[in-house]
């Protein structure tokens, strides 16, 4: 700190703790100590308080002791002369600020003041409020309010991206930029680098959220820009997110503050970007963030704190906006963001994609509505497909992009057109098995362009192009430019040449479709033949070890990674791309137990990969030495002993399960690299695998599953039912629409004739 900052931060902390005490006193008298307090859809209570103190706050009456602790961390401001040291004291005051801020937000949830209302505002994806206990007793529509706290569902679904580096970190942006243009450009620069933006605070009543809203920037989970609230206090949600990262992926427990803070310093690449005047409260919140190892960068003149230690690099950096080199706001924003990245040591991989619209993963979730649409390809009125195949090196001209047929100008406004995207790649390390792996990337690559929406795959592809993108000059050839650039940057190790042909001529589209469909069929058969017994090596996946140090996934052809993002072929391709990377082949060696799925090779690897924590792993059982999980799992399975079966909960399901716990609570037991018989995190496509807990009786053991899984995988589950010899099987499985307690479950299963009831005891 400097004395200037210490003085303000400590003053701000004293004020906020006082404010929290007054609010709490009022709330206790108006609502009573037994009033429940909670943030939506999280198993981590009030997460910063839980992480730092270990207290599982559930009622207003439990909050006073938190504020007692906060007050004990306060200090007087440094003297004007002959001062005593203030760094430790300021950091403690910062922590007091966080405890007070979270207390205040919790009280605001009680009063229905969170999420903050903002008439006319529409979230592009956000926390859902399904519990009737929330928001003063009613379901909140997805618009008219900001996001408030981030729920566990979103935390987990971002998990894999945070750990594999696609999402290099997050920016807690507090305040208001010097102009709306600057606000947009700063956020665009962060989005371009796939850095998650958390927005809060204001200057003089005007918030960056207002600025972006005024400029028509979509805000919400889908665009990696989460509007927390227009005051500084709401920035606490960013630290709640950080705390939960350590609890979810780091295997840490509440009440381990030092470990949680160090975990964040070492593994969570976040920083605070303070826009506009920094007041006492912002300084005190920033002091709280510095405890997490998150540095502060300001676009105004503030004292710099350049020595390192609490943060990995500089603590506080001032980059006054007027003094940033740059001809315009875009250039200044780029330099500012560049500095943030440098100060936090964020590792950013950016493919330079030569298209006239902003580009980055942050735009993957953008929706193009009919009204904003310039043209679409596929969907109801036209046909669109994509097909990637390998070719010989001398057959291709790298970078060649050919458009055959009509251009965009020939399509009427909001009209549609047939399109085929044909990609040919060549490289010495390329294998035919990698074709589908690469082809699946088209979805992400194309979606990265702002104003382009890509849905589906293969011959059900559906692409929309917004008016804004078209006005910016986006044309058909740019699809090719994106794919060329991204395949080189992401798969450069196996791809040397990329050539793209865009066909809009309907007859030609039709002709090429036949070829593509033959290839799709061939690949389906290849996949069906690709069983665990047909290969002699599985792959390890230690991508998540940066977050969950002792967890290791073992990925086999019939069991994909629990995150759902990596199957055996993906791992194989990944190994080719990076032979020393997170996916390593595991030579199976002698088979020890074909039923439970033990090999000498997998056991040996489990020991090494988990640093001795896990001794053995059964590939096909939940009951004996089940595979561990990081925290990014798509589903959690858990034994229901009374029903002689298991339940499967989707991470998208926030409702109560027969285990008496919601997904969020269950996740605390399943994550962190700990082996717990009867509990397992899995990828949802493992459910349809013939090897799905085959040692324990297979799919027939599933007595309950979230309806979102039943609906989302209806086709696949139908095939499973047929394979299991009972076409009605899926209907015999309960879900949250029918049953939410174990007492209800048993009669329901009997009524519907579930096979698990008559199977051998699972235990």
């Amino acid at each position, binding site marked *: *700190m400097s004395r200037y900052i210490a003085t303000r931060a400590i003053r701000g902390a004293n004020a906020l703790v006082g404010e929290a005490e007054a609010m709490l006193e009022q709330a206790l008298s108006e609502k009573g100590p037994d009033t429940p307090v909670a943030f939506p859809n999280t198993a981590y209570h009030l997460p910063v308080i839980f992480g730092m103190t270990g207290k599982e706050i559930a009622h207003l009456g439990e909050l006073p002791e938190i504020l007692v602790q906060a007050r004990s961390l306060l200090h007087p401001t440094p003297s004007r002369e*002959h*001062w*005593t*040291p203030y760094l430790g004291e300021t950091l403690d005051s910062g922590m007091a600020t966080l405890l007070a801020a979270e207390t205040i937000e919790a009280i605001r949830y009680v009063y229905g003041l969170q999420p903050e209302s903002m008439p006319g505002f529409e979230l592009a994806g956000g926390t859902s409020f399904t519990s009737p206990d929330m928001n003063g007793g009613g379901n909140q529509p997805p618009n008219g309010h900001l996001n408030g706290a981030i729920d566990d569902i979103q935390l987990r679904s971002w998990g894999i991206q945070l750990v594999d580096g696609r999402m290099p970190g997050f920016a807690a942006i507090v305040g208001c930029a010097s102009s709306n243009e600057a606000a947009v450009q700063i956020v665009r620069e962060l989005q371009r680098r796939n850095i998650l933006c958390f927005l809060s605070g204001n200057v003089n009543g005007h918030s960056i959220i207002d600025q972006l809203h005024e400029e028509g920037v979509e805000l919400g989970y889908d665009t990696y820009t989460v509007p927390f609230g227009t005051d500084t206090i709401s920035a606490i949600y960013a630290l709640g997110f950080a705390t939960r990262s350590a609890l979810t992926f780091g295997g840490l427990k509440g009440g381990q503050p030092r470990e949680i803070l160090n975990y964040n310093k070492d593994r969570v690449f976040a920083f605070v970007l303070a826009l506009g005047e920094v007041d006492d409260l912002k300084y005190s919140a920033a002091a709280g963030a510095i*405890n997490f190892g998150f540095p502060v960068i300001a676009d105004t*003149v503030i004292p710099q704190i350049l020595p390192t*230690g*609490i943060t990995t690099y500089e603590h506080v950096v001032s980059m006054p906006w007027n003094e940033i080199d740059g001809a315009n706001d875009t250039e200044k924003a780029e330099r500012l963001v560049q500095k943030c990245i440098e100060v936090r040591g964020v590792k950013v991989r950016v493919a330079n994609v030569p298209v006239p619209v902003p580009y980055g993963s942050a735009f993957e979730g953008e929706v193009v509505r009919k009204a904003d649409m310039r043209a679409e390809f596929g969907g109801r009125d036209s046909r669109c497909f994509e097909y990637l195949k390998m070719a010989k090196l001398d057959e291709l001209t790298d970078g060649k992009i050919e458009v055959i047929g009509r251009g965009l100008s020939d399509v009427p406004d909001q009209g549609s057109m047939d399109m085929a995207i044909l990609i040919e790649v060549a490289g010495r390390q390329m294998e035919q098995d990698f074709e589908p792996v690469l082809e699946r990337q088209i979805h992400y690559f194309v979606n990265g362009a702002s104003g382009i929406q890509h849905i589906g795959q293969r011959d059900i592809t559906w692409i929309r192009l917004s008016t804004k993108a078209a006005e910016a000059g986006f044309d058909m050839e740019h699809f090719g430019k994106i794919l060329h650039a991204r395949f080189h940057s992401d798969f450069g190790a196996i791809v040397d040449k990329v050539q793209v042909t865009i066909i809009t001529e309907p007859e030609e589209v039709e002709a090429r479709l036949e070829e593509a469909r033959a290839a799709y069929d061939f690949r389906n058969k290849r996949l069906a033949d690709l069983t665990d017994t047909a290969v002699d090596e599985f792959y390890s996946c230690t991508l998540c070890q940066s977050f969950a140090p002792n967890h290791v996934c073992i990925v086999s052809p019939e069991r994909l990674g629990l995150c759902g993002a990596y199957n055996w072929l993906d791992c194989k391709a990944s190994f080719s791309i990076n032979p020393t990377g997170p996916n390593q082949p595991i030579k199976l060696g002698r088979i020890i137990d074909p039923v439970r799925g033990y090999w000498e090779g997998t056991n040996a690897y489990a020991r090494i990969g988990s640093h001795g924590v896990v001794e053995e792993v059964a590939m096909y059982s939940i009951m004996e030495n089940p595979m561990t999980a990081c925290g990014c799992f798509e589903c959690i399975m858990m034994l229901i002993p009374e029903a002689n079966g298991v339940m499967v909960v989707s991470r998208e399901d926030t409702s109560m399960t027969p285990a008496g716990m919601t997904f969020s609570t269950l996740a605390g037991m399943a994550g962190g690299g700990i082996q717990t018989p009867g509990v397992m995190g899995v990828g949802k496509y493992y459910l349809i695998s013939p090897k799905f807990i085959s040692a324990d009786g297979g799919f027939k053991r599933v007595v309950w599953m979230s309806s979102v899984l039943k609906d989302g995988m209806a086709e696949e589950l139908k095939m499973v039912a047929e394979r299991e010899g009972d076409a009605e099987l899926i209907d015999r499985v309960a879900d949250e629409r029918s049953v939410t307690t174990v007492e209800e479950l048993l009669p329901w299963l009997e009524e519907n004739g579930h096979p698990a009831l008559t199977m051998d005891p699972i235990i």
Partner: protein
Amino acid sequence: MAEEATTTPRNKRRTPEEASIDPAAQEMLTLADLMGLGTAFSRADDLAPCTIGAVGMCCSLCAMGPCRLTKDGGTGICGATIDTVQARNFVRSVAAGSAAHSDHGRDMAFTLKAVANGEAQGYAIRDIAKLRNVAAKYGIPIEGHAPEEIANELADLYITQFGQQRGSLVPVVRAPERRKKLWDELGVTPRGVDREVVEALHRTHMGDDQDASHLMQHAVRTALADGWGGSMIATDVSDILFGTPAPVLGEANLGVLKADMVNVVVHGHEPTLSQMMVAASQDPEIIAYAKAAGAEGIALSGICCTANEILMRQGIPAAGNFLQQELAILTGAVEAMVVDVQCIMQALVALAERFHTKIITTSPKVRIKGATHIEFDEAHALTIAKDVLKTAVDNYQNRAKIQIPDFKSSLIPGFSHEYINYMLGGSYRASFRPLNDAIISGRIRGVAAIVGCTNPRIRHDFNHTTITEELLKQDVLVVETGCSAIASAKMSFLLGEAGLDRVGPGLREVCETVGIPPVLHMGSCVDNTRILTVLTQMVEEGGLGDDIDAIPAVGLAPEWMSEKALSIATYCVASGVYVMMGGYNPVEGRGDKVPDSVLVSELIGDGWEETYGGRLEFLDDPQEMIRRTLAHIDAKRAALGLSAYDPTQFGRSGDARLDAMEEEMGEATLDERRAALYGQVPTS
């Protein structure tokens, strides 16, 4: 500083300005001259040191001698060679120093035991966290145990360390792993405090150990029993009983004496009495008693390390360092000087007789002929402390003319290693990482511990402050204890302000970030063990090598005089530190006349460096000490692979720009202020 070091010229009295750089001391020396009174300064001028004894060439261990070994090849009557004689003298000095610190530690352990048993009036366990922390290091069960139980066990363990015969002293477990291994391999891990001291006396008796390097090995073992034994125990227990120091505002120099109050100066080393004096001096009954005597109250102050003990815990002012004990009496304003052990000049009594000042001895171990003796015992501590104060108050009416120099400086002492750890990260992130980072980056070039006495043969405070001043400009962080710290305090180096304008650019950034003075006052001389702990924690934090000798750090005692200083120097060297002492070398010999007389000097230099990684040197010239300090630090930086020191990279942190803006914007409107926050608009 344009001034120069002056050592005692023969047969010539120095002027007050030549004798001390402290204006308060100068004023009192002038007064002494006027009154025709002698002080240690004038006695040093009048009494030339024995030239043979000073270089370690005299053996007076038995009645066959004393033997003066001034010729090449000469031996004592028994045949002892010059290096044997020097080594024996050195070992005996170290044993005395180790004994002094350790006996202090022993008394602290006994006090802890008495407090745990409720047998010590007025004492309490003030720092339960430290008690638990220390006890846990030794496997003493703490969970579910009352502080008194833990204290009882810890006291028992600590008491046994003095009489222990075999094994190793328990505090040694706190040393870096590699260091412990080295000591074990060399056979110098101390077994028991008393055993090492007794063995030192035995081995140096006539006709025993007569191999200089073997003797010097025992000097190391005896010194380690001090640094990683007796002294460490003393510091631990003091913190447990009186509180671990944390920064507090204090004052130093003779100007802290009060014209209208009863001045009581505590002098010596042990905090047991002085802490109780602090409590008693705030007692309403005593204050009323003082007022009844016509004084405004009682002004307590300290001299020497007792001063440091109460300064860093309660902010009680320090009247001065070792050489100021007589000068305080010369003010005529001291009603009583209350002394316990160590560094108390016998001259005080004769001098006090010229004034109304009462010299009150309190330790059962220390009496001075002519002084008043009020024996202290912890069972009646508070009562005795009050009696002492009442004696002082009763003496107030006898006060005659007074002259209190109008010089005092503020300071912020109290940098225990626990607080240093806290200040670098707060309750949640406390660690030495920021300090190690600052050294690794080169903001802090290295660390110098400047400690030890003042010595009337060396210009008072000059070496301490000359070296401190220059090292700060060179971005060397300075930690100090004992009389050295008081010297720096008087020069206002112990203030946050000094961290802004009296330091190099990198160190300034660190001072401003943490809010620290560039010189950290870590306590009394017994607290040099805190420095060992800091060095160990720096090693454990990582990035600066795996043992103390890898750290870019030096130890300096530029005005040393006591045998305790030799013990401290030896345990620091054995812990891996390069130590430079200012003034005479007790084993210097006369290389020009007796070639063998430099063998021991070579042994403690090159020899010890090879064995322990640290070396011991004695140097006259503070400039040479500065040069060697920087050369050593730079060499250690290079050995660690750290970037070469380059101050031009640093200095961009801090409040300066904001302060300037604030000034400039005095009349500005809110909007203008807001606009200015975005910085200068480029003019082109």
